C-alpha cells in the first residue's frame, strides 16, 4: 500500500461517499461541538424543516463567547446583564433541551471555552473527525484528530445528518527540529510559523506539525500550536498521537476505559503518517533559532521576535495597520507602553499557561495603571488553579481573577479594551477592534504578557528570571 499521511488515513476512514467529478466527499463526523453564538440559526432551520438531530449523543454544547466572566453573585450564580447575550444563552438552553443535546451550562463544572473542555473531558480523541462552528476547532488536532471550523449552515448539516460535504484539502508539513531555548514557548513557535507562512499562506491546506521540537511538547503546548493554524489560513492543524497523547487522555471522563482503552490505543498507534508519505508542501524550522515572538500589526501574521524592529511597511495595507496601531516602522516594540494585559483564550488559558504566568507574578506587583485580566479556560481549570493557590498569586500581584470564558479575546461579553488602549494578549487575533472597538493588541505568550504587566511596557520575560 502507498504510504499515507495521517490526514489521509483519517479522511478515508470517514468517507460515507468519496468525492466524484460532480460532488464533494461526504464525511462522517464523530464529534460536533456547539456554542451559543454560531448555533441558534441552525436550530431554527431544523425546526422550520421539521428535522431531528440525527445523533444527539455526538453533539456537545457549552457557553463561552457571550458569557460574562465577572465574579459570581452571593447566590453562587453568574449574572448575565446583557439582554442580547441572555437571549442567546437561553436559546442554547432551549435548543439543547428540545433536541436532547448534552449542555455544559453557564457556571456548571464542565463549562468553559469549547476548545478547552473537549480535550479536558476526553471527548477529543485521536483519529476522530471533530467540527464546530468556530475556526479554532483546529485546536483539537493536537490529539491526531482531523478538526476544523465550519459555518452555521454546516452546523445544521451535521445536526441533521451527522455528515458534511467537503472538498479534500492539500497537506502541508511544518517540520520543527531541534530544541527550544529557555524562555521560548509553544506560543512563540506558532507565532513564528504564522509569521513565516503569512495570514493566507496556509489557505487550502491542512497542516501536520512534525519534528523533534513538536514531539517534545506537552499536550497543552501542542494545543496552543494547533489552535493558531487558522491564523495562517489552514483550517486544520494536526500532531501525530504518541505516548504524551495517551498519557493525557487516560482516565479522562469520556476516554475509553478498560479493554476498550487498550483497543483504542492500539488503533491510535497506526494513525501517524507512514514513512515516505508525501505532503503537497513542506516548511522547515530550526527550533534552536526561535525567539520569543510578539505581533505589531493587525493580523497574526505580522509577528517579530520580541527584540526585533518593526518592519518598514511595504504596501498600503501594512501602512494602514501601522497607522491603526500608532506605531512606526523600523522602531523597536520592546519598552512600548501598554494599558491592559489579557491572559486567557483557547490559545493560552490552560493550567500550564496560568502556572507560567504565575511564576512571573509571584512576589511582584502589576505596574500602576495597568489592568490585568486572568481568565481560566474552563471551570475545571479555575478549580485546579485555585487548589494550588494561583488565584492568590494573581490577586496579590494586582490582577483580576475571573470566571471561565472567551472574555477579552472576542469582546462580546463585557470584557473589552477602550478605544486607543494597548494590550498584550495571549489570545490569537489582533485584528482591528477584536478586543474592543479601537483597541490595539499585541499577541504574545503568557510569560511575555505577565512580564509586560509587571513593567507596564513590552518586556522580554527572559530578563525577569
Amino acid at each position, binding site marked *: 500500500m502507498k504510504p499515507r499521511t495521517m490526514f489521509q488515513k483519517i479522511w478515508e476512514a470517514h468517507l460515507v461517499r468519496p468525492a466524484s467529478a460532480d460532488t464533494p466527499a461526504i464525511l462522517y463526523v464523530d464529534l460536533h461541538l456547539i456554542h451559543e453564538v454560531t448555533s441558534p440559526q441552525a436550530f431554527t432551520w431544523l425546526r422550520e424543516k421539521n428535522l431531528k438531530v440525527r445523533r444527539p449523543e455526538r453533539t456537545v454544547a457549552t457557553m463561552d463567547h457571550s458569557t460574562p466572566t465577572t465574579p459570581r453573585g452571593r447566590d453562587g450564580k453568574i449574572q448575565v446583564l446583557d439582554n442580547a447575550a441572555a437571549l442567546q444563552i437561553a436559546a442554547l438552553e432551549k435548543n439543547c433541551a428540545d433536541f436532547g443535546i448534552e449542555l455544559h451550562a453557564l457556571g456548571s463544572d464542565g463549562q468553559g471555552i469549547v476548545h478547552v473542555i473537549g480535550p479536558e473531558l476526553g471527548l477529543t480523541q485521536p483519529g476522530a473527525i471533530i467540527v464546530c462552528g468556530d*475556526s479554532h476547532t483546529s485546536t483539537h488536532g493536537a490529539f491526531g484528530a482531523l478538526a476544523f471550523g*465550519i459555518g452555521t449552515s454546516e452546523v445544521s448539516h451535521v445536526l*441533521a445528518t451527522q455528515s458534511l460535504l467537503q472538498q479534500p*484539502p492539500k497537506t502541508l508539513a511544518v517540520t520543527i527540529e531541534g530544541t527550544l531555548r529557555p524562555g521560548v514557548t509553544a506560543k512563540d513557535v506558532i507565532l513564528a510559523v504564522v509569521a513565516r507562512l503569512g495570514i493566507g499562506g496556509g489557505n487550502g491546506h491542512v497542516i501536520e506539525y512534525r519534528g523533534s521540537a513538536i514531539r517534545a511538547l506537552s499536550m497543552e503546548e501542542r494545543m496552543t500550536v494547533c489552535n493558531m493554524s487558522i491564523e495562517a489560513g489552514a483550517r486544520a492543524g494536526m500532531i501525530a498521537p504518541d505516548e504524551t497523547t495517551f498519557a493525557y487522555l487516560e482516565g479522562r471522563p469520556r476516554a475509553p476505559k478498560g479493554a476498550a482503552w487498550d483497543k483504542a490505543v492500539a488503533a491510535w498507534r497506526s494513525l501517524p503518517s507512514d514513512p515516505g508519505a508525501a505532503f503537497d508542501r513542506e516548511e522547515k524550522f530550526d527550533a534552536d533559532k526561535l525567539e520569543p515572538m510578539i505581533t505589531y500589526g493587525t493580523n497574526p501574521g505580522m509577528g517579530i521576535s520580541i527584540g526585533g524592529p518593526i518592519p518598514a511597511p511595504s504596501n498600503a495595507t501594512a501602512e494602514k495597520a501601522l497607522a491603526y496601531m500608532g506605531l512606526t516602522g523600523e522602531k523597536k516594540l520592546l519598552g512600548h507602553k501598554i494599558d491592559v494585559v489579557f491572559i486567557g483564550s483557547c490559545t493560552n488559558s490552560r493550567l500550564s499557561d496560568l502556572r507560567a504566568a504565575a511564576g512571573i507574578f509571584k512576589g511582584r506587583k502589576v505596574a500602576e495603571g495597568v489592568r490585568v485580566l486572568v481568565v481560566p479556560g474552563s471551570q475545571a481549570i479555575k478549580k485546579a488553579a485555585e487548589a494550588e493557590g494561583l488565584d492568590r498569586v494573581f490577586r496579590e500581584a494586582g490582577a483580576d481573577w475571573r470566571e471561565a470564558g472567551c472574555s477579552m479575546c472576542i469582546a462580546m461579553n463585557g470584557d473589552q479594551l477602550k478605544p486607543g488602549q494597548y494590550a498584550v494578549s495571549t489570545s490569537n487575533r489582533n485584528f482591528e477592534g477584536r478586543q474592543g472597538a479601537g483597541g490595539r493588541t499585541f499577541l504574545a505568550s503568557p510569560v511575555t504578557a505577565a512580564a509586560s504587566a509587571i513593567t507596564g511596557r513590552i518586556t522580554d520575560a527572559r530578563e525577569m528570571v
Partner: protein
Amino acid sequence: MEKVNLITSRTVVLPVENVDTDQIIPARFLKATSKIGLGKNLFADWRFDADGKPKADFILNRPEASGAAILVAGDNFGCGSSREHAPWALHDYGFRAVVSTSIADIFRNNALKNGLIPVVVDRAVHEKLLAAPDAIVTISVEDQTLTLADGTRTSFPIDPFARFCLLNGVDELEFLLAQEPAIAAFEKSRAG
C-alpha cells in the same frame, strides 16, 4: 435557496488586503439569533465613527457605492473567524459577489451557501478592477466568467457542486438528507 446565475453591477473597490470577518461584522453584533438585518452593521467600525455617524471617506458611504452588488477587495478576503454572519451581512447589505485574488476557505464555503459568489481572479484582472472603481462588471455562474465593460473576459474557478446548487436553487442540506441510506450504511459498518 434562490437560484443565482447572472450578476451585472457597478463595483465597489476596497483595496485592503486580508479583510477579516471581524471587520466585515464585529463580534458585538453576533448576539443575534437570526440572520436577518445584519447588513446595517456591515463593516460597522470602518463605516461609522464612535458616535455612529457615517465616516465620509469610507467607500460604502460614498454616493457612487449605493446599489452596487459586486465588492472588489484585496488579497485573502474573509480570513479569520468562521462566522457565517459575514456573508449574511454582505448579502443583506446587497452584495452578490466578492472579487479578489484569493478568498479564505471558510468564508468561501459559507458564502456559496448564501448566494454570495466568491470570485477569484488573477493579478492582472484584479489590478484592472482596482484601477477602475465603479466599472460595470458581469459575473456568470453558469459560464464561470467575469466580464468587464470593455469586453475583457476571464474565467474563475467554482466548485462544480456549489455551482450546480446555485444554478438550480438546491439547498445542500436537502442533498445531504437524500443521502440517508448511505449515511445509515456507514454507521452500520462502523458499529460492526
